[in-house]
């Protein structure tokens, strides 16, 4: 059965997979030496958002579902992860796991409601649900209102590694990112991932082939939510704070933009997109009042001229060149 489907979808050749793995190794290599030149806290922020965008891309790029409420997983996990470490004395890895688990559970509940809808309605259901989560986070006592949860202690990772030091923690975050990224890569390239792509390309056909489409969609949704939660809980430890910013709909919008700029449906696109947008936010901080105008302008340019995103355009250029040769 599954072979029938994979045949219809453009299946990746072994060569393409190898190229991706090499690119991944290069990426991690860059990550290993980056702190020599770049400030580790900034790098950790990039990694957290890159992971968040990868999780989001899993849905939009491989299942074709545009979620406009992903901030709820990211933000809620940041709150519960941060709270468990600060108030209950969880160790950092437990706090991160707890945040991830909460993201997954929330993903299951919201996913059950949302996956029954498609296209713009799916986006709107997720938006509505995330606005409710925002409201909960604003009202709940444990979140500290808009002041957020401050001064979350970092402590020792696995009881051994002192992550109070930014550089050490950076390598831990890099490891978390690498693990999660490989998980996504593995998922996308597995038979499960092929079915997801089949659903994206032609849902009625996947149904007629006997796949329980809703099950697949829900599993992808929960996985995406859990990874977004992982990113959120890690970020809470990086900045030692969790705040309302992470739960707002603007944050959901930001992750859409990161993915778009990097290239939807490409495995590295979200990573590049997150790096570009976060760098831009830091870089543009010096332009003061012009930040919004410049940001808006960049999005307009991307939509008008580079619709496939940075990585997508590069891939295209590469394929064209290869075909010519």
């Amino acid at each position, binding site marked *: 059965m599954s072979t029938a489907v994979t045949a219809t979808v453009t299946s990746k050749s072994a060569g393409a997979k190898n190229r991706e793995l090499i690119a991944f190794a290069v990426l991690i290599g860059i990550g290993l030496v980056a702190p020599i030149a*770049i*400030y580790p*806290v*900034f790098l950790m*922020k990039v990694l957290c958002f890159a992971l968040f965008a990868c999780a989001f891309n899993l849905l939009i790029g491989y299942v074709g579902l545009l979620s406009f409420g992903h901030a709820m997983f990211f933000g809620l996990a940041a709150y519960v992860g941060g709270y468990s470490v600060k108030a209950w004395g969880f160790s950092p890895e437990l706090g991160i796991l707890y945040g991830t688990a909460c993201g997954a559970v929330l993903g299951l509940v919201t996913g059950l409601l949302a996956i029954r809808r498609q296209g713009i309605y799916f986006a709107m259901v997720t938006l509505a649900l995330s606005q409710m989560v925002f409201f909960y986070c*604003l009202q709940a006592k444990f979140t*500290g*209102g*808009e*002041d*957020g949860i*401050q*001064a979350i202690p970092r402590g020792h990772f696995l009881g051994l590694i002192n992550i109070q030091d*930014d550089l050490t923690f950076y390598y831990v975050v890099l490891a978390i990112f690498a693990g999660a990224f490989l998980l996504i890569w593995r998922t996308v390239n597995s038979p499960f991932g092929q079915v997801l792509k089949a659903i994206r390309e032609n849902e009625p056909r996947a149904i007629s082939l006997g796949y329980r489409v809703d099950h697949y969609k829900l599993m992808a949704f929960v996985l995406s939510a859990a990874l977004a939660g992982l990113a959120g809980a890690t*970020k809470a430890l990086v*900045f*030692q*704070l969790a*705040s*309302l*910013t*992470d739960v707002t709909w603007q944050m959901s919008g930001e992750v859409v933009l990161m993915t778009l700029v990097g290239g939807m449906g490409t495995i590295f696109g979200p990573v590049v997109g997150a790096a570009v947008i976060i*760098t831009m*936010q*830091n*870089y543009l*901080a*010096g*332009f*003061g*009042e*012009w*930040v*919004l105008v410049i940001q808006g302008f960049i999005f307009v340019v991307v939509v008008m001229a580079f619709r496939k995103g940075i990585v997508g355009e590069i891939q295209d250029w590469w394929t064209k060149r290869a075909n010519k040769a």
Partner: protein
Amino acid sequence: MRLNTLAVSTAVLLAAGSAHAQYTNGTIKIGVMNDQSGLYADVSGPGGTWAAKKAVEDYGAAKKGLKVEVVFADHQNKPDVGSNIARQWYDVDGVDVIVDVPTSSVALAITQIAKEKNKVFLGSGPASSDLTGKACNANFIHWTYDTWALANGTGKAIVQTGGKSWYFLTADYAFGHALEKDTGDVVKKNGGTVVGAVRHPLSTNDFSSFLLQAQSSKAQIVGLANAGGDTINSIKQAAEFGIVEGGQKLAGMLMFITDVHALGLKTAQGLNFTTAWYWDMNDANRAFAKEFAAANGGKHPTMVQAGIYSSVIHYLKAVEAMKSDADGAKVVAKMKSMPTEDKLFGKGTIREDGRHMHDMYLVEVKKPAESKKPWDYVTVKKTIPAAEAFRPLKDGGCELVKS
């Protein structure tokens, strides 16, 4: 690092041959962090950066052989953005002191970082009185105002002039709750009553429903425990719905001169609020405002911008006296031990919990006919002496205070 290369640096003043090795990196570097384009951009924003640069210039750093640099950044009112900038500034870019930082959530995050890195943070913009209470530390000074001072100044004055019963319109955010609670306490202490409160979501467009509830409460005073656009909208709509004509009075708990400007005198007239500084109070202030307006498109300075000026002057005095800016806690201790004095805030002191003590002023917005020149908006009704203006030391719960 990006910030470093981009942030406009100013007043790179080199006195020939007098390199002070005691200053970290040979320079005293001041980072102005605030909201450059959002909700609070008019309250401090680019004008705040200007004020810091002006302070460096007026202090005569160049003549004294000090090398001072001012950088700025936009925290976009997001704690994580602010926190990222602060860490980078302190760790990489050699910033010795961060000034301003409106938005309490960002300020709370940055006090922690200043403590962790043992640097200095002088808050002119943030409102929360927790900063010198539960969240106080030895690396932070709260310069201009706080929620307690505003609530106390306005609340007390109004109760004493007969406004006994209160109803609150509160922004459903931590600062709104704090303003409501602090004002409520003052009102009750002075023999008034609080008959009720309604909590509205932040950035509400329409206040008519809440105003109607305030109206039917029959309270004499409607206290606005909100800020920025919410305060402006509630005052504007209160005029429309005849709240004031109906015999009730409005009291803005957190108002800036820029809010009055946005409302226009016709709508704002008669409002009372508390401020730490007003540009038209004396010649020194007027001269400062004139220069400020010339450099900032006609806008006049707010108390936050004046506070930045004042805090930078005092900081420079302290580091010059110590000949070092390396140990943040020691610099702050030195600042606390010296009396403050500058042309805008006059004489003052800094308390052990980090509270800068100075007079506050209760002001009333003028009628349109009384306004003689641009930005001639308020009259000072009462000076609240420093000792009464701020929360008593023992009530804050700051751990630096030895009982």
